[in-house]
């Protein structure tokens, strides 16, 4: 079947990968991020590393949304920050168009930040409490020396994200969570970036507010053609907004494909387990369905299991899983899956 290009770990593009499709706006290859673990108070000794991200590769194309899902500690947010170099990756490459982001010095990187923006998870922590909304949304212009007409631009941005421009002289704490997240989005949009990393942008919001923000994001994408890297743990939101999805576990991509590949034809046991936990709106179906309950907790990221990382909780695990790490390739199910025994099974 279709083979995955290069290192065999790349997530497939919207069109069949391997062909000369459109060039990705952001491409990540074999990204590795380790955080050192120290012991002792006075004499600090490095006792090990947290393996937050271990060789992750994916492409993001213009105007599309790639979802990165997984449970806490799977490395999703670390990837988001590595892409923007808010964390320095330990190894791997991050390319924005033709530019190797990791090769840029601080000054060059500052200029490139116009093209890559981020919206954070917690709208209460991501806005400076001492600045007015006008100052917050206008700050990107001031940082990049685009001083003329900041006021008008700011008003326009606030209108764009559905806020009243008259409220620009208020402080963040005077707004609700959803409104604050809109302020964060307006700030990210200010410099018209090509890529926006959305680090769990709605998980801190009420369900009723989530819909509004998600719709706003979709709307903006349609109008501005920006690409989203959407980090989330909420599978229903991801299903709603993402074109393609990559499922992560312990710093590795387990399975990747289009939205329908993942939701209708999941082939990795972990994906199947995740999907079986998504609540169904229909109570009859909800009661009747089989839930895959995983045993135990995710293993330590300091010493991840040998072979397949998921084998310690997998019901399909065999000897080979401990010995050989399964490659993220298509084994006949139509999209890449990192499981020796990948098999499509409809769950939802």
């Amino acid at each position, binding site marked *: 079947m279709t083979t995955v290009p290069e290192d065999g770990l790349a997530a497939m593009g919207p069109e069949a990968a391997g062909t000369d499709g459109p060039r990705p706006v952001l491409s990540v290859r074999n990204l590795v991020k380790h955080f050192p673990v120290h012991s002792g108070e006075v004499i600090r000794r490095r006792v090990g590393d947290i393996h937050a991200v271990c060789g992750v590769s994916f492409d993001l194309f213009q105007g599309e949304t790639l979802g990165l899902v997984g449970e806490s500690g799977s490395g999703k947010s670390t990837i988001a920050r590595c892409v923007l170099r808010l964390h320095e990756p330990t190894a791997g490459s991050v390319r924005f168009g033709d530019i190797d982001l990791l090769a840029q010095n601080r000054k060059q990187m*500052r200029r490139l930040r116009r093209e890559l923006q981020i919206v954070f998870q917690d709208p209460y922590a991501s806005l400076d409490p001492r600045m007015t909304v006008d100052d917050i949304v206008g700050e990107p212009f001031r*940082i990049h020396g685009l001083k003329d007409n900041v006021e008008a631009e700011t008003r326009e941005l606030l209108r764009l994200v559905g806020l009243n421009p008259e409220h620009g002289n208020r402080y963040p704490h005077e707004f609700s969570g959803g409104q604050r997240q809109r302020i964060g989005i307006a700030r990210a949009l200010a410099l018209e970036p090509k890529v926006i990393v959305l680090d769990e942008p709605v998980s801190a919001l009420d369900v009723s507010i989530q819909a509004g923000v998600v719709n706003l994001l979709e709307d903006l994408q349609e109008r501005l053609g920006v690409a989203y890297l959407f980090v989330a743990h909420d599978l229903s939101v991801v299903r709603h907004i993402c074109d393609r999805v990559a499922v992560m576990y312990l710093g590795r991509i387990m399975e990747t494909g289009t939205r329908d590949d993942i939701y209708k034809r999941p082939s990795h046991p972990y994906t199947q387990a995740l999907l079986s936990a998504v609540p169904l709106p229909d109570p009859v179906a909800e009661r009747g369905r089989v839930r895959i309950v995983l045993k135990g907790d995710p293993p330590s990221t300091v010493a991840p299991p040998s072979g397949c990382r998921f084998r310690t909780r997998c019901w399909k695990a065999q000897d080979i899983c401990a010995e050989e790490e399964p490659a993220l390739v298509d084994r006949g199910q139509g999209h890449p899956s990192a499981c020796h025994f990948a098999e499509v099974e409809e769950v939802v």
Partner: protein
Amino acid sequence: MADLAHSPVGAPKPAATDEMVEFGVAATSQWRRVLRRFLRHKLAVCSLVVLVILVLASFLGGSLIAYRYDELTKDFSSAPSLRHWFGTDTIGHDTFAQVLRGARRSLIVALLVAVLSTSVGALIGVLAGYYRGIVDLALMRLTDLFLTIPSFVVLLVVSARYRGESGNWLALSLVIAGFFWMQLARVVRGIFLSLREREFVEAARALGATDRRIILRHLLPNSLGPIIVNATLLVGAAIVTETALSFLGFGIAPPDTSLGRLVAEGAVASRTRWWLFYMPGLYLVLISLCINFVGDGLRDAIDPQQNRVRA
């Protein structure tokens, strides 16, 4: 009266507001908001008024009243009266004139100490907290070193060296300031260590903000509260330290005087000639109190989340 409303005085008003909207600068409007919130803080405003009066009196009052601070009048040890508001001492100095002169010295020393040690402490705290690592290690060990030095001994030695010289107030303030910055450095470092991990700082970095901008626009404004409180406490502490030194005879050299010296000299006579002790004492307390209230009001005014207005 009636034509006042139609008078040309009222006419330019709308034009002025238009202008404000058009040229409204974000930075100035923010300070205008701070000012408005400060003005709502009644106690702070009253304290500021009293403080301004006290400061003006200390600096200008000496030339307005009938006696000079070093003049010997014919009234010895007279109680407060219309002629001598604060009474006189045993050799006929007018206490009011002396208090004004003393307050002038004390205020200069206190403000100098507050400004110097706040700047040094904040700078060291900012550098240590923001850059961490080796910078933090070096600056904090330096801070520890200063904390372990018995400051009063050094103060005594240095003031003994300058004892009796007329310009010794400057040396005195520098040395006091040199031992007053450590606490603030620690506090600011702590605040910066926690603030720099906050998401709004990460957001600024993601926008391409420089370290300078992050420190000046995001981190410092968010740590101003504790810095101001610390600075106002320092003013009080500096006055007290100067008083203590003067009490021991190491402070401001006569014929110059300070509130500390006056209190120290008056303390001996506090039972028989109470005005020699209580008048400069009250003046001292009033100054410290006002500075602390003003500091409180400033802190609340700068914090936009502080909506509570105290009477």
